[in-house]
């Protein structure tokens, strides 16, 4: 009986969003009378940072500072249509919709500015600080605040735009079954090192080293935060999370989240995160979906590490001590 060490590796491709019948998200953008920009969405921020990222995308497209953008995630009764926040799709789908809406709003904004400055709209540019100026002659400028006031009170224009991003449904080819479930894939690779106690069946993850290829990281700190949490959650899926951790008989299992195991602050593996950015062709500013995918590669990596350590293949999750001990017993019985 001994503590045995093992190392496992796994690599994944992960689709951004899904495509079971078309995958749309819509967005609306409009300016307030004082030249702030309101983005209306049904996509929800549940802590993954949707509001921050959509504000960045809108601000970058219109050419204003991020703090000039307000995100209203409204509700699904009243907001523009969104399929939802799942499958790592939020940044990609809603981001593309926001870009389209913001471009349309920017065009109206430039037209109103052009009337005020008596120039052509195509000769104007934004300075990113809240002003619009003539290209090559920045002294001829007007603030977006004044443009919005003019649009609202003088020119009767609505500085607004509509955005729609739809990945159309893909049907399988009759002959081959081939289809295109997604247009955009993130990638990840994880190496996990574990110790397995072959007497108790308990697994300790010592280190987990992850490389994530997630397109362009629109907010690098928030991406890192997501990946750190996701890596932990992957280990949690691999080793802990089930409603009946040690009891095959449902009657003896947990009845509440009280008995639902997850690793706590004392059970953390030494974690490394490396981000590779290969901008996607159809993502907003090259982004892909880093959300859900980042909790996946740890699972096969840990399963492989357990195999490396004690020579048994556990093919049911989570990899509980009981499953390991049963497999070891079967292995010994030959």
């Amino acid at each position, binding site marked *: 009986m001994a503590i045995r060490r093992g190392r496992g590796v796994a690599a994944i491709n992960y689709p951004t969003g899904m495509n079971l019948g078309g995958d749309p998200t819509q967005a609306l953008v409009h300016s307030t009378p004082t030249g702030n920009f309101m983005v209306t969405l049904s996509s929800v921020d*549940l*802590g*993954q*940072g949707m509001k921050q990222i959509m504000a960045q995308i809108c601000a970058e497209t219109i050419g204003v500072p991020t703090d000039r953008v307000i995100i209203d995630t409204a509700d699904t009764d009243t907001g523009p249509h969104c399929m939802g926040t799942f499958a790592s799709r939020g940044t990609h789908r809603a981001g593309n919709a926001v870009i389209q809406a913001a471009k349309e709003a920017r065009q109206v904004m430039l037209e109103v500015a052009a009337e005020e400055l008596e120039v052509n709209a195509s000769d104007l540019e934004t300075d990113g600080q809240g002003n619009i100026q003539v290209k090559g002659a920045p002294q001829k400028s007007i603030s977006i605040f004044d443009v919005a006031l003019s649009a609202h009170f003088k020119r009767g224009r609505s500085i607004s735009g509509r955005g729609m991003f739809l990945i159309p449904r893909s049907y399988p080819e009759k002959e081959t079954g081939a289809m295109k479930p997604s247009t955009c894939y993130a990638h990840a690779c994880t190496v996990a090192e574990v110790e397995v106690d072959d007497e108790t069946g308990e697994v300790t993850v010592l280190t987990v080293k992850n490389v994530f290829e997630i397109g362009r990281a629109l907010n690098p*700190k*928030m991406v*890192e*935060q*997501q990946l*750190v*949490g*996701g*890596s*932990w*959650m992957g280990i949690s899926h691999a080793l802990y999370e089930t409603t009946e951790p040690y009891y095959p008989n449902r009657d003896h299992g947990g009845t*509440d*989240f*009280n008995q639902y195991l*997850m690793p*706590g*602050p*004392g059970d*953390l593996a030494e*974690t490394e995160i490396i981000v590779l950015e290969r901008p996607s062709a159809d993502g907003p500013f090259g982004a892909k979906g880093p959300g859900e995918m980042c909790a996946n590669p740890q699972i096969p990596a840990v399963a492989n590490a357990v195999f490396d350590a004690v020579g048994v293949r556990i093919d049911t999750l989570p990899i509980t001590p009981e499953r390991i001990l049963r497999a070891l017993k079967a292995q010994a019985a030959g």
Partner: protein
Amino acid sequence: MAKVPVQFTLNGSEKAEFVESGTTLLAALRDKIGDTSPKGGCHQGTCGACSVIIDGELRLSCLTLAETCGGADIKTTAGLAEGGVLHPLQRAFLDAFATQCGFCTPGMIMAAKVLLDRTPNPSREDVVEALSGNICRCTGYEPIIQAVLLAARANSQNAA
């Protein structure tokens, strides 16, 4: 049901309420007084989201009856910022990206505050121990541990 009068200090101001006998402090704070910073995660003492500080001790407000809090000095995360300036722990949670959905955050901050009040220069093990009664679904804990260590460093620099 008969109502019971209860008086205590919440974040430095006097509060007086009539509560139904058996009302938890969590319900009294959130539904009567309107301090929604303590969160109701499990309502049975296992997640730590409802943590508050009562007379200097970390307590689970979901397991504390409001009527037992007469005369107590209660502190919640809502009372930490002073004059619009965030408490060093709140600052550190932001700077370390230690919050995602934020549901665990007020409880984590309360647990961390009690730790730092007693142990201004905690080790990593001290922090892990202090947070071990609080569950987080999002962050993987490491950023929270780092935030508490960051706040401790910021405090000791300010004191120096």
